[in-house]
């Protein structure tokens, strides 16, 4: 409650009662309050004329990288006696050094610098306001003003280095890359044979095939290595997320998405991202470092959410995914997703599912004894069944035990390069 109101109320109450009852004592008692309030009124500070500038360095950082924030404050007005300046820090950020609020006096033209360091979790954080409060020396009258100082930081998600992701999309782009295409040419993987033509390297002649004929030579053809068009879909539905006290399964999905994006962009592919949760957050396809930055920023701001429309994968936007395109779905998978994914596969999409294992996550959070319980064993069996159903439909599923390095999980899978069949599965 404001102090001047309390004082004013008491003063008037005492005077009124004193006059009503003609009591000198009550009237006299109001005098100290009147003087106290009067001194406050005489010392009321002038209008605030502060110039506040914010400097953030660096504006994008990774997890646990300290970010320095400087507030440069200049007093353009008159002498300010009791000044309180406080910066608003988003709750997920933690101050590691320096101070975010200060109590001081400022002479006209005086400048000061408030500096602090923060670290925080993945996210996009906006700094909009600085709270400035001026008051008289006794603190009876206080005036608070919110100064606008814009600033934004991105704390990007962390990533694991991945050596290679083996994908085999039906269509590739014209540009050179590392994805084996379905066209013969120069490359590493064997594609087929053709008749020798003048100019072919002798090293490419298939001598075994040529030995079958007297007058013909055959040359090996290899799969051309091209860049591909890849759609990453991140499952941000609340129903597929599991939260513990300090951890969330969704963070592992983000880690997987970041690692895969880094690798794919580095290999020259055209990548796009769809965050499927409360709404559809689409980062349109492109390649290069700027696209990587766009995707990382989208991942930094990704949050789980609920939506009745996007409860399952039935409403994936088809315009986002041309037929035969390569889809990488990062999702812990819900049992009700099987039907939607099989239907998607039947429409001709190449699907790779990276699946952070929710059961292993819960076992880690709840203790090893949880592993032996019948309910866990039944859940594991159900999950295996679901994955095998998906695999039978031609969807590649990588089940990721989240406490194993992501690159290691992809490694054995990478060895198995058999092309998977395109199956027509009725809906």
């Amino acid at each position: 409650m404001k102090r001047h109101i309390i004082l004013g109320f008491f003063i008037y109450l005492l005077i009124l009662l004193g006059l009503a009852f003609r009591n000198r004592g009550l009237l006299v008692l109001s005098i100290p309050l009147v003087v106290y309030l009067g001194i406050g009124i005489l010392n009321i500070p002038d209008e605030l004329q502060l110039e506040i500038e914010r400097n953030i360095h660096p504006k994008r950082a990774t997890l646990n990288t300290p970010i320095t924030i400087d507030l440069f404050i200049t007093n353009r007005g008159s002498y300010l006696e009791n000044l309180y300046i406080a910066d608003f820090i988003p709750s997920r950020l933690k101050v590691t050094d320096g101070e975010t609020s200060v109590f001081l006096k400022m002479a006209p033209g005086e400048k000061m610098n408030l500096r602090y360091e923060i670290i925080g979790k993945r996210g996009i954080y906006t700094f909009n306001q600085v709270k400035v409060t001026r008051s008289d020396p006794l603190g009876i009258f206080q005036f608070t003003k919110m100064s606008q100082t814009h600033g934004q930081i991105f704390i990007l998600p962390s990533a694991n280095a991945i050596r290679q992701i083996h994908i085999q999309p039906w269509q590739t782009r014209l540009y050179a890359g590392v994805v084996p295409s379905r066209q013969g040419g120069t490359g590493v993987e064997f594609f087929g044979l053709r008749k020798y033509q003048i100019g072919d390297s002798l090293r490419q002649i298939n001598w075994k095939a040529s030995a079958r004929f007297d007058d013909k030579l055959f040359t090996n053809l290899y799969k051309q290595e091209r860049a591909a068009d890849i759609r990453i879909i991140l499952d941000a539905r609340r129903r597929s997320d599991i939260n513990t006290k300090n951890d969330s399964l969704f963070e592992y999905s983000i880690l997987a998405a970041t690692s895969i994006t880094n690798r794919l962009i580095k290999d020259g592919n055209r990548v796009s991202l769809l965050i499927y949760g409360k709404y559809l957050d689409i980062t349109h396809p492109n390649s290069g470092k700027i696209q990587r930055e766009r995707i990382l920023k989208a991942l930094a701001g990704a949050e789980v959410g609920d939506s009745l429309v996007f409860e399952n994968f039935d409403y994936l936007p088809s315009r986002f995914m041309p037929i035969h395109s390569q889809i990488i779905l990062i999702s812990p998978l819900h049992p009700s997703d099987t039907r939607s994914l099989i239907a998607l596969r039947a429409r001709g999409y190449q699907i790779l599912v990276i699946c952070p294992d929710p059961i292993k996550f819960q076992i880690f959070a709840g203790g090893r004894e949880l592993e032996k319980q019948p309910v866990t064993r039944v859940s594991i069996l159900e999950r295996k069944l679901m994955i095998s159903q998906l695999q039978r439909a031609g969807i590649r599923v990588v089940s990721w035990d989240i406490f194993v390095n992501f690159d290691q999980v992809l490694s054995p899978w990478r060895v198995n390069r058999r092309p998977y069949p395109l199956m027509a599965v009725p809906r």
Partner: protein
Amino acid sequence: MTDYSKSDPLNTTRFTYFTNVVMISIRLICFATTMISLYIGFSLNNLAINYFPLLGIAFVWTIGSLLHKEWISTFVFILTFVWIAIGFAFNFSLHMLLLATFSSLMTWDLDYLCLRFNMAMRIIEPGDLIIKHFQTLFLAFGIGIILTVIPFMVSVKTSLWLVLLLSLGIILGFREVFRYPKEFLNKR
């Protein structure tokens, strides 16, 4: 430009533990003075029964100080002041009640100052700020004491009409007090 951010090897600009302890001690002395003077003031008029309510107020104030709650401090001030007003209304010991008035006002003031200081993570030149605060406070109390004592030395006779006229002025002015900060202060 004065960079107060990190280069402060002697730590002189902080609201130090020492300063905090000194402020707490002064507040404690002020509050104890209020309680004792109230107790004596009432006891001298054979009303020693106020011992228990005062203990209750002291308990609430201690909790408020520990929790750094502004509203508890204000609540205690209101309770104490009502207590003092009762004493004044019944013409109990004047000296004791005056002492209680000023010490309770000082306790409330310093409670508030400490709260504001504790709110900030850093205080630049707290010594200067505290000295300036005490100067202003003593000025207010000095003038207050003089003006409070004078009416007890002189006797003014009032008539019913004068009382009614003053009451009217007060009632009219009452509304302005609550509008005062918004309209008048913004012009400054």
